[in-house]
């Protein structure tokens, strides 16, 4: 990797159906960094994630998103994926009739084509897929199952991380990947994320409500999003304090300062 990948979000305002949800978010994520984002329900965390990934429903009314200096807002969702951005969905959708293996092979080949590489050979693909499935404790049978169809909540989350492991992004956003995972699965999945982080120098934005995942994936920075604004930032201790004292505590602290 020649240069350090960096995702810069500057003064981002986002509306859905003319309702402003994000009201000026600024955030920079560099390769190898782990950021945690916490915030009450409805504060706009998923909105931020979808906007970065390029969901057409989310309209950016102000601000910018740059990836290695390039304007991400001008890219379609598939181009964003191909430059190295990845979103693990909070609620992944099912695609009936499309097997996981088939889908992943198409996706990998789309990425390869963008890099001017030839398609992956079936043998290579199978070997790689099975390795990653094993790493994440996913049964082989999932390769032949239809994408997310009939998957349990936890299975969907694991499948998201499998996709991440296969596509090897530079910056990954995990939107509540921990919710729905059982205790063992949370550990296995977190270890998988850490491995990718160490191997690839991937940067991660972990969106979560709970401290537990942060015990495994240790954040360098913690951001608190309330009502579309980042109202507090700090190190790992901030997450700890939030878990103990709740969001009202942050609000009160802010009020005191004001």
């Amino acid at each position, binding site marked *: 990797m020649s240069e350090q990948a960096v995702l810069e979000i500057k003064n981002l305002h986002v509306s859905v159906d003319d309702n402003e949800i994000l009201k000026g978010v600024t955030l920079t994520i560099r390769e190898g960094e782990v950021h945690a984002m916490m915030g009450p329900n409805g504060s706009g965390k998923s909105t931020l994630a979808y906007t970065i990934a390029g969901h*057409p429903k989310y309209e950016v009314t102000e601000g910018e998103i740059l990836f290695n200096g390039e304007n991400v807002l001008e890219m379609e*969702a*598939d181009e964003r994926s191909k430059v190295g951005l990845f979103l693990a969905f909070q609620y992944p959708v099912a695609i009936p009739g499309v097997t996981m293996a088939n889908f992943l092979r198409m996706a990998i080949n789309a990425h390869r084509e963008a890099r001017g590489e030839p398609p992956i050979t079936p043998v290579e693909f199978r070997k790689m897929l099975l390795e990653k499935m094993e790493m994440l404790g996913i049964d082989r049978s999932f390769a032949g199952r239809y994408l997310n169809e009939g998957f349990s909540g936890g299975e969907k989350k694991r499948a998201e991380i499998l996709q991440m492991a296969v596509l090897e992004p530079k910056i990954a956003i995990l939107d509540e990947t921990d919710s729905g995972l059982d205790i063992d699965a949370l550990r296995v999945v977190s270890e998988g994320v850490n491995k990718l982080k160490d191997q690839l120098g991937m940067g991660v934005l972990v969106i979560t409500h709970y401290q537990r995942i942060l015990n495994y994936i240790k954040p360098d920075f913690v951001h608190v999003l309330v009502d579309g604004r980042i109202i507090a930032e700090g190190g790992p201790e901030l997450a700890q304090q939030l878990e103990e004292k709740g969001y009202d505590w942050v609000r009160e602290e802010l009020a005191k300062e004001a």
Partner: protein
Amino acid sequence: MALDERQQIELINKEYAEKYGFHDPEKYVFKARKGLSREVVEEISWMKGEPDWMREFRLRALEIFWKKPMPTWGADLSGIDFDDIYYYIKPAEKQARSWDDVPEEIKRTFDRLGIPEAEQKFLAGVGAQYESEVVYHNIKKELERQGVIFLDTDTALKEYPDLFKEYFGTVVPPSDNKFAALNSAVWSGGSFIYVPPGVRVEMPLQAYFRINAQNMGQFERTLIIADEGSYVHYVEGCTAPIYTTDSLHSAVVEIIVKKGARVRYTTIQNWSTNVYNLVTKRAVAYEDATMEWVDGNIGSKVTMKYPAIYMMGKGAHGEVLSIAFAGRGQHQDAGAKAVHAAPYTTSNITSKSISKDGGRAGYRGLVQIYPGAHHSKSNVVCDALILDPESRSDTYPYIDIREDDVSVGHEATVSKVGEEQLFYLMSRGLSEADALNMIVSGFIEPIVKELPMEYAVEMNRLIQLEMEGSVG
């Protein structure tokens, strides 16, 4: 079945026009004059040297055709001008058993369509019909030795008159509907299959139907008799050149599935979008017999086709798997009919329709359970996928139950290609076109996976071809 090999998709980027839409110069041995009359019908019968009973059958059917009104339901048929159609065109002097003996231009057509190649690779027998007559017919010697008969229907009438007369017109009588009557009056070509008791034909038998002339009407007639405990899979494909005037294809297919036998009939219909495709397909299944219709309707301007299964013996089973794709200017009124006339009979109907660019696709089905058909079960699942707001899907499921102790299920879903699904796939790096293709091929996968590999590939190719240009 894996369907999205990138290379395959790239190969598909040829348009129908290039692949099927070409036409050859018309060099015919005989072409009846346009329009329909007793004289034309008698001429067809005379040209074929038919026995009297067949000539009379035709003339009776013609009277029925004239008397019956046009259907007032289904698709719009007002564009058909019965006086502006050629009802009989004889393309070659005689039928060939070797491709070398097929007239050069016609052979080239079938070469372009890949038929001789497919025959060598994976078929047990092939028939190729060009306009009104079957120009090539062959079956593996091995099957012939086992007593399997696979002929064009005209030759079968000559060579097996008794067997022919015993079954012909018994499943679909001319009075069944206006287009069955028309076919009965002017039929020509089609396949005749007889499989002796206990014989299993492991590789498919295939017929390919090609309309070449402008304003042509093709009226083939197919009759399949599967004797006790036998098995056969018959496949038909169809294409035509693109003309600005309309052509008519109106076939009748009759199938008799005897005790314990199984017949699978697969259609991959890819007529050009100037063809009215009005076909009557019906099977009777006796005790413990199984009849399966796999029906792919991709082409044509208008299709009205509802493959039927009459379950006449205890334990008979019927299966209809249907895919319809309606693009710009197309109306696919497809469906199925399952009639339970004996106890312990079961049927499954699965219909998938896709409409885009203002196309209209639908399911029209009837499940009937007669008194006494106790412990019968039927299940109908029809799913529609609509790709844009201009397109339309209709579902008309009719159920008529005259027996208490039965179970009938019906499930229908209509889905629009979801923004969420598209976004999900695109967020992994697939282009919008690839993402849409993937959703569509996933949608039809449950049916495509029932097809032998070669046809699954073909079906996917055709769907991909239809999908071309639907994005952007």
